[in-house]
């Protein structure tokens, strides 16, 4: 019996390491992409939130635990790389990853169409996060201008990036699941 328990624990540890390494690398890559590449190119004048997209996708495909850990890592990494001052993204992304993962873990809900509402809510949350940051930094200014120039383009691009990440992150999660 002890032998079986030991084998199960080893298997679980190996699986955790595999997940952690894969998601860490993914988050690191996307973080660098967001900060260095998209931060410089700024399509439509804004930077899409790839980390939120990754959190949503991983939560959607791999469940609440993976979503929560990815959310904490993504939030922390993007704050550490890209901003200064007050930060709350680890908490926000943790909530996104855990809650989305909990709702999406039901069987038969992992189709592209089922992914879209999560992504849409993620994009809206991105808008809310930006609003909170604007309020913290006293940069709300003209609300219409903020909506047209910042919020809508940012949410739109985040939505688009989420759609583009659906396939590669889905494949990654499928590969990890298969190795169970």
């Amino acid at each position, binding site marked *: 019996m002890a032998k079986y328990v030991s084998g199960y624990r080893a298997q679980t540890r190996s699986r955790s390491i595999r997940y952690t390494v894969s998601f860490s690398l993914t988050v*690191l*890559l996307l*973080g*660098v*992409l967001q*900060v*260095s*590449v998209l931060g*410089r*190119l700024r399509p439509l004048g804004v930077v899409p939130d790839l980390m939120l997209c990754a959190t949503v996708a991983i939560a959607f495909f791999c469940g*609440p*635990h993976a979503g*929560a*850990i990815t*959310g*904490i890592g993504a*939030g*922390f*990494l993007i*704050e*550490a*790389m890209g901003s*200064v*001052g*007050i*930060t*709350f*993204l*680890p*908490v926000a*992304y*943790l909530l996104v990853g*855990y*809650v989305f993962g*909990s709702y999406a873990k039901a069987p038969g809900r992992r189709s592209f169409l089922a992914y879209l509402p999560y992504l849409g809510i993620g994009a809206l949350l991105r808008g809310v996060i930006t609003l909170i940051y604007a309020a913290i930094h006293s940069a709300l200014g003209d609300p219409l201008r903020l909506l047209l120039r910042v919020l809508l383009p940012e949410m739109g691009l985040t939505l688009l990036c989420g759609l583009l990440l659906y396939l590669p992150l889905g494949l990654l999660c499928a590969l990890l699941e298969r190795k169970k």
Partner: protein
Amino acid sequence: MKIFQNKFFLICLCVAIVLAAVPSTLSVMGFQSLSRNIVGVVTSPFRWVATAVTGAVEGFSLYFSGVDRFYAENEALREENAALREQIERAELLEKENERLRAYLGMKQEHPDFTMEEARVISREAGNYVTVFTLNKGTLHGIRANMPVIVREGLVGYVREVGLNWCKVCTVIETATAVGAYVPRSGATGIVSGDYSMKTEGVCKFSYVEGDADIQVGDKLYSSGIGSIYPADLLIGCVASVGEDAYNRTVVAKIQPVVDFSAIDWAVILTGYTQE
């Protein structure tokens, strides 16, 4: 709130709060967060590579996005170039006109006894050596047949045919032309006329010269004024070679005209002169 009864979630939430609160507090207090520093150091090489790649991609895309701008700039430069070319052409024309008027004035000063009618060449006889060309002056301007035609350099020929506002000029290398000529150095006289065999070379012959006449290569030939067409002392050309006539005991010389007939674009018709 079922979610807050989950042990995993609560642990994660605590970690997240610590990860958010500690850097925020340190940042607000003016200290640098160790975690941010570590993340910055670890991700720095990746960011450097990403920035380099982005810079390259940006440069590449700028190359293509700049094509429209380059087209517009090219178009503007073309237009500017065309305008400048037009200005240069106009300036060249004015310069040419100026030269022509200077030459005309010079001729007037050299030959005060000449009455002249300036004319422009409007067509040329096709061929390698132009021997007949048409001027834009005719009977309306007082031009008549057999009037001599000159340029600043020397004698060109004479008016062969006249129309209302045009006339045809035969040059001295044309076979129908004959000019009484002399060599000032030795006083040798003879007749300069065109020759079929020499016409293609752009030269003419100096014949009917006495056998013992002193003629050398390089000698200048002037019109003698003998005959009713040409006034005296108009430069015709230089002696290119000297030989003997095979049929009689006279000297024949090949003459290179001083006027380049293919380059003439204007000439002066002598409508009157005082014969001494």
